[in-house]
């Protein structure tokens, strides 16, 4: 018996069995209590509530939604709003983060210091505080619609949000849209062709001016081909509020600003540490081979820096998506606010609703980490 206990394999099995028994007992305890509590309090179970009428309005919805719609639709609206804020936040944070990261490494002493000050300042302030600051101190303190800040009669900012014109979706608009996509595709094709020709013959081809030309020329041509009817719907003051155009609500703006500014500091740090992680000898070797500093950066340093910098940046994207749940503090109608907030209050089925919300974030996390793994695999140094 004692010998059996000293056998490492048997001990391993024994301890694992003990853990499993403990875990199952714990889960069983929790489960039976929960069932008893739910029965006693008369809480409904199951997912039938998703078909029940929600009965509350959501002021920003990318799809048609009215009070008569179901809680299931509330879930979809919340999910879509989460995805919208995540997309916009990631886009803005990447642009600002890359910019600050590059400035941080600038030769210019003043600019490098300012970029560092930006990072040190915003990184050390809780995101929720930043969201509330933008919302309560900046955006809600804007004047009312009658006294809104007016930029050339096109953009308006007031305490109800930012108003800007939107083109009408007619034939001209779609032709121009198609032409921009066309110019984009054509530039990629041209670039591939130029690279291939350079490898084969060594001849250079200036892709950049051609691409710029296409981006200007194509939409102009499309404007005339599409019938020259590009109409904009401008925001106009009607009574107490603006009509027409497009509105970005203060909640959305506060959340976007805070997420962008906060996440950008982490992205900037990732960019900086990525570039600094490339050994100095790499750049020196490139320059001694006769590369120009720009070529050394583009062809030697950056390809190596990207491999180091991208994984932490993707992690920051994931953090940004999870942090977008703080929207509930200002009431932007994403999934935590409307589904795990308002719907939960009405229905009271906390277990189902919180699990569904968690599942949404888990699935997003799994997708992002799948992308990360794919990237790491692709970027792995090919050793021969």
């Amino acid at each position, binding site marked *: 018996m004692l010998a059996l206990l000293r056998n490492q394999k048997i001990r*391993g099995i024994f*301890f*694992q069995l003990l*853990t*499993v028994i403990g*875990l199952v007992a714990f889960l069983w305890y*929790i489960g039976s*209590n*929960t069932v*008893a*509590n*739910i029965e*006693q309090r008369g809480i409904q179970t199951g997912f039938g509530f998703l078909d029940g009428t929600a009965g509350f309005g959501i002021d920003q919805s990318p799809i048609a939604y009215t009070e008569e719609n179901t809680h299931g639709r509330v879930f979809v609206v919340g999910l879509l709003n989460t995805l919208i804020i995540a997309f916009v936040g990631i886009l803005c944070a990447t642009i600002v983060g890359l910019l600050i990261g590059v400035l941080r490494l*600038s*030769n*210019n*002493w*003043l*600019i490098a210091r*300012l970029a560092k000050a930006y990072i*040190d*300042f915003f*990184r*050390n*302030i*809780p*995101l*929720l*505080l930043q969201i*509330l*600051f933008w919302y*309560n*101190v900046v955006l809600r303190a804007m004047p009312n619609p009658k006294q809104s800040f007016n930029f050339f009669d096109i953009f308006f900012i007031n305490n109800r949000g930012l108003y800007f014109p939107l083109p009408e979706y007619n034939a001209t608009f779609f032709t121009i849209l198609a032409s921009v996509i066309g110019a984009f595709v054509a530039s990629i094709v041209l670039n591939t062709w130029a690279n291939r020709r350079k490898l084969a013959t060594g001849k250079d081809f200036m892709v950049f001016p051609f691409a710029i030309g296409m981006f200007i020329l194509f939409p102009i041509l499309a404007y005339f081909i599409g019938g020259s009817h590009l109409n904009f719907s401008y925001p106009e003051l009607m009574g107490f509020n603006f009509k027409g155009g497009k509105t970005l609500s203060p909640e959305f703006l506060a959340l976007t600003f805070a997420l962008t500014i906060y996440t950008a500091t982490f992205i900037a740090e990732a960019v900086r540490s990525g570039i600094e992680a490339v050994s100095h000898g790499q750049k020196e070797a490139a320059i001694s081979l006769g590369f120009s500093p720009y070529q050394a950066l583009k062809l030697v340093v950056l390809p190596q820096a990207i491999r180091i910098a991208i994984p932490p940046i993707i992690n920051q994207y994931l953090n940004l998506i*999870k*942090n977008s*749940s*703080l929207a*509930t*503090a200002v009431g932007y109608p994403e999934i*935590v606010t409307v589904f*795990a907030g308002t719907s*939960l209050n009405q229905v009271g089925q*906390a*277990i189902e609703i*919180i699990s569904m*919300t*968690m599942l949404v*974030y*888990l699935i997003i*996390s*799994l997708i992002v980490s799948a992308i990360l793994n794919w990237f790491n695999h692709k970027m792995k140094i090919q050793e021969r």
Partner: protein
Amino acid sequence: MAIYNKINERKAPSNTKGPTVWIRENLFSTPLNVALTILGIMVLFWVIPPFVKWAYINANFAGTTREDCTSGGACWVFIRMKIDMFMYGFYPSELRWRINTVYGLFFVLMAAFKYLKSPLLKVALAHVYFIVGFLLVHGGFFGIEMVPTDKWGGLMLTIMVAAVGIVCAFPIGVLLALGRASHLPIIKSISVTYIEFIRGVPLITILFMSSIILPLFFPEGVTFDKLLRALIGIAMFEAAYIAENIRGGLQSIPKGQFEAADAIGLSYWQKMFLVILPQALKVAIPNLLSVAISLFQDTTLVLIIGLFDLLAMVRLSAADSYWLGYETEGYVFVTFIFWFFCYSMSTFSQKLEKRFNTNLR
């Protein structure tokens, strides 16, 4: 014999040293740099003078009422009048010495740590500190008046949530990290599932879970304090992040250390606690400090489930009808406090990182 003409020594070239050269090289070396410098100076002028004017030159410091704020700048009177609420929440003012004592004892603890050598004694002392601290703040024993947790608030609650969160999450995190590094398949998969699940969801959903669903898990009659529920959620959340950082430390330990510990006949726990973890934790400390920073920032989320931490206290005070319109001052004040704590911690962690780096060389 050759004749050498003495050549007078040349002056050091004037254009390689000195402040003007430094300015030329660092600020005005290329046209782009000139433009950037001008832009930078513009940003500075645009941000700093108005802020200094608002926060200091035109600000009102003296007085006790709203009417004392006349000069158009910041009204720091508001902060002065509300500072007790920001620091202690609704804690009864005649009992605030108890919280101050706990703060004071912290420095005593730090001083004792400096002179004590035995790690076991240190751990024991830290435990004593937490128990004494809790008893003092909560009261309700030996005739000391009890202060229920719904009276706790302000900076004191923020610090408490962060400290208790880290302290409770740490042992769980160590166990999870060991579980994840273990060779036993079931233990490993349980740890991995837990860590990845927690890391995949936002803290706010975990806080909702711990504040709404947790009471359902226990039999009728067992009630949890709101604060305790938040602390359970935070500790559960933070344990997963601590585990991931310790795992990073564990991975950096060479295999030879494990084999050597096995070879001299140490048991699993002896091997881990005497050989592996001391080294792994040392590697992980800078990262653990960043976990501590983000936890400190995350404590603000407890306001969403209805606890009154520092940020919530400021929001509440700014909504006071008498002091309406001074929320900017309140937010600037909390910003400064949070920034001060987090920046000190991150500077400290960078210092540690540098010190440990040189040790490894």
